[in-house]
């Protein structure tokens, strides 16, 4: 399989020069997720502050990924998408949006984009938890589902 041909130009662009990678030392929330089947791991760090309207926004976001080309590219693109967004809007993100932003993913690599969305949910969940905020029902549910997904097979 030719690696460069299997992926879109945008995927390769993000892979070659990933945006927002690294660690945030005093992060407000950290999400760690792994795909149990392929073994890839993603860690997302977020820093939260308030915008002028007093709404909480994701002021900064960084990622660390142990994974394939698609995992690195989806990690990079999700940081682009949610940086500066309100938490409310960030939680609306779907894997389809990531895939579209990357100009498509090979079918077998769709799960890599799930990893990115899961990572974001987990980071926000972690922030709510750490700051002792009330966790919305849907986020609690998503968190449980993610834990289930992470557990399988490992």
């Amino acid at each position: 399989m030719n690696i460069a041909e299997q992926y879109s130009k945008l995927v390769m662009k993000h892979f070659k020069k990933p945006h927002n990678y690294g660690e945030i030392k005093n992060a407000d929330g950290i999400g760690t997720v792994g795909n149990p089947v392929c073994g890839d791991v993603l860690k997302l760090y977020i820093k939260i502050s308030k915008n002028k309207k007093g709404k909480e926004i994701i002021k900064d976001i960084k990622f660390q990924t142990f994974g394939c080309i698609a995992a690195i590219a989806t990690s990079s693109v999700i940081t682009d998408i949610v940086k500066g967004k309100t938490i409310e809007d960030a939680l609306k993100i779907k894997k389809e949006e990531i895939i579209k932003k990357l100009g498509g993913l090979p079918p077998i690599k769709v799960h890599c984009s799930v990893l990115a969305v899961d990572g974001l949910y987990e980071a926000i969940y972690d922030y709510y938890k750490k700051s002792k905020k009330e966790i919305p029902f849907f986020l609690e549910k998503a968190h449980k589902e993610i834990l289930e997904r992470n557990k399988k097979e490992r």
Partner: protein
Amino acid sequence: MKRIYLDNAATTKVDPRVLNLMKKFFTDKYGNPNSLHSFGIEAREAIEISREKIANLINANSNEIIFTSGGTESNNLAIKGIAFANKSKGKHIIVSSIEHHCVLETVHWLEKNGFKISFLDVDKYGVVNIEKLKSLIRRDTILVSIMHANNEIGTIEPIKEIGEICKDYNILFHTDAVQSFGKIEIDVKKYNIDLLSASSHKIHGPKGVGCLYIKEGTKIEPILHGGGQEFGIRSGTENVPGIVGFGKAAEICKKEMKNEKRRIEKMRDKLINNILNIENTRLNGHPKIRLPNNVNCSFEFIEGEALIGILNEFGIAASTGSACSSRSLKPSHVLLAIGLSPEIAHGSLRLTLGRFNTEKEIDYVIKKIPEAVEKLRNLSPYKKRW
């Protein structure tokens, strides 16, 4: 950008000497070797010359060589052909757990059709367990099939010992020599081999042609039925240009093996030594008893497909046993069989050398690999731990 090809276990460039000889069998000598006119006769002669050259390389007689469409067909023919020819004697077959997919899938198919298969495990270097082999042999065992050298990790199996055991127990012995044929010495007589598979495109010959050595007097059922070509064992009009090219490729291998082996081994060792200088890296396969052209290493904290992706950007063509590059998402069965954890198997890199690689290329590669590894480790969440 200049490209460097280090995936010679996947396939090789056709040697210009091979291509040159093949050409006229497309344009002038295009007869069917089964025809009685001069066109047919010259094609027939060319095939027989090739047969002899190939037999020569492994110390066989030329009537023991059957041309096929490649390694996959040879392995299918050997295993299915022996299974069906001997099913009244027994239905038990032993293979190693690190065989190529075309052997594993063949025995899985036989299993569905009433045969019993035992899988022989390997040690941490990928060497089959000889004592265990003896214990797996049963009264109804008809065939042992163990590869000569592994395509992923390059480990060379003790086929001489296996041949002796099979001879003692009066069991047929097949070896998949696709990766070793033409690269290291093979003597079917000395090693007591009954069947041996080889493929042309791994030795700088054309794709789509290979052969099966079948020791004289061995009963085998054909899997392709038709016009009775290849001693009735493999019907179908012969791929004359392919066979001519394969023969030439084998002839060159025989003539140049000694020097080539030394030259390529030197580049291999340079690669290995330099790669192992990178922290948290290991060599997969046997440190000494390995193919002269195979390097297989694992890098902790990074994933193979991503590594291949960066090397590709540097113009270096390599391969991996990582899950992420395969269709199944499971890491290579070979790397798991030698006891690597899925994480480590995930970060594996295979570099395989060939006739056209140069020392200069290797010098470039050993400069670029640490760069690629460093780049990916900088992205990895495990970075802190090393």
